[in-house]
């Protein structure tokens, strides 16, 4: 069940923190201890503001998928959605952050070995796809990237820089790529050549991709999210329902789980 890897809590230094679209940022943190344990699908908690005992707010650190690692650094791709991510977006290079983790079971913990994959990222669910692509081999992966509109899409050239050829969609047709949902090009690809899928994004998308996996007889590895306080498996805020009636903790048995095992209709975002 558990990976056996003990998370670390360390001080990191922000090396880069820049916008890739209006609200989407790329942050690179130098934190050798945590970076050494990074793996696709695993996540870290980050805090760039004062500790709660020093009066710092918000109270909780914020969890993020690991986007990329290089040397002693790890990178996060994050979107500003509330006060924590807003503070993070205003943290300049050179400032200190607390990094805890990595936490949870990643792609390498659920798949026996790297294999050709389809990668389906919706919105900021794009974040874990880069590390997954590096793990499975960039030539073995095809990325499907969906957004609500062009206004929130990440910079196309930056994306090409690591994803190579990819299929982009926007729900309203206002950006690069084609209009519609990410499941449309994904299903076309599955019909041509079935492959296992690694997916991350909003709950309705994860449910839809999991259904596609069943239709085409391929495993779907879904990186799920839930409101989370501790990351260590003790608070049970991130406990989600399984189809068999049981539950799992996103921070311990997840975040990467078999999409067919989750009772998606009971998961509210």
């Amino acid at each position: 069940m558990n990976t056996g890897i003990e998370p670390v809590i360390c001080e990191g230094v922000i090396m880069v923190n820049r916008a890739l679209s209006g609200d989407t940022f790329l942050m690179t943190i130098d934190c050798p201890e945590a970076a050494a344990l990074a793996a696709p699908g695993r996540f870290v908690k980050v805090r760039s503001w004062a500790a709660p005992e020093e009066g710092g707010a918000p109270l909780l650190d914020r969890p993020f998928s690991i986007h990329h690692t290089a040397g002693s650094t790890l990178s996060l791709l994050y979107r500003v959605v509330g006060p924590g991510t807003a503070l993070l977006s205003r943290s300049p290079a050179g400032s200190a952050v607390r990094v805890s983790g990595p936490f949870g079971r990643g792609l390498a913990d659920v798949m026996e070995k790297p294999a050709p994959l389809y990668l389906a990222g919706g919105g900021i669910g794009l974040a874990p796809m880069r590390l997954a692509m590096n793990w499975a081999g960039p030539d073995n992966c095809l990325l499907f990237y969906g957004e609500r509109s062009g206004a929130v899409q990440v910079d196309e050239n930056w994306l090409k820089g690591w994803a190579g050829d990819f299929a982009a969609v926007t729900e309203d047709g206002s950006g690069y790529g084609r209009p519609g949902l990410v499941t449309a090009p994904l299903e076309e690809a599955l019909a041509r050549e079935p492959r296992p899928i690694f997916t991350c994004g909003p709950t309705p998308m994860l449910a839809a991709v999991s259904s596609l996996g069943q239709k085409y007889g391929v495993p779907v590895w879904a990186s799920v999210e839930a409101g989370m306080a501790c990351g260590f498996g003790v608070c049970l805020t991130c406990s989600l329902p399984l189809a068999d009636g049981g539950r799992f903790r996103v921070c311990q048995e997840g975040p990467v789980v078999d999409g067919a095992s989750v009772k998606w209709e009971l998961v509210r975002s």
Partner: protein
Amino acid sequence: MTKPDLSVKIGPLNLKNPVMTASGTCGYGLELKKFCPPEELGAVITKGVSLTPWPGNQTPRMAESASGLINAIGLENMGVEAFVAKALPALKATGATVGANILGHSPEEYGALSKRLSLTDIDFLEVNVSCPNVACGGLAMGATPEGVAEVTAAVRENRGDKPFIIKLTPQTADIVAVALAAEREGATAVSLINTIPAMAVDLNRRRPVLANVTGGLSGPAVKPVALRQVWQCASNLKIPVVGLGGIFSARDALEFILVGATAVEIGTATLTDPAAPVKIIEGLRQWMLKEGLDDLDQLRGSLKI
């Protein structure tokens, strides 16, 4: 005894220091051992257990508020038999002092849980009559002196020789009257406060943030409420009072002891830093050295009004 002496007594129970983990914030004691070795604590109070496993509420189970956390876990737990068979022996093997937090729907269930746990090597019981997140659970019984008296009596009759602490809700008309009811019925001590009933709403979606609609507020936001009620109870009870509610630092813990708490529990702080309880123990020691205190009796209840 090395100076300063941090040990405290709760009835017959000797704790090496006054810092315990609050139920539901340290799992079954071993999950955080790398950062918070359970044997270094005054005691570990484990996640509340019921007679049978409970599934808890749906998610979202938490919302953040200013200096606070609203949770509605719904007491998801493995049930007492799995606890006794697996979690308890593993935790006791570390040498930790262990208190089992128990929860039920009726005095009979509390009695049955107490009887079951009296047959184990648990060090003490903490009786949750104050959770705001279950439909017919603790809070209804915990809000009145009569309800608390009934549960306290059921535990007393069934706990064998185990000390037991009644954990109180701040949501009462008269906290002292409720605490005195526990004292009259033979409780070893009371602990307070449990979370404060609260809610968060999502304006854009026009719906509650929590799947359970309402939850319980914890964290620094509740500390002043907890401090007042601990002070009131400590001033009016003969049995020890265990203080909790928004304790994030040694200073916070010392404030609770100053108003009369015998010991403290660390809850939400552990969720933000798993080492918080051991950092607070060290902070107590440093403060006592700096202030020249030999033991905590020299501080306890010394508030000058």
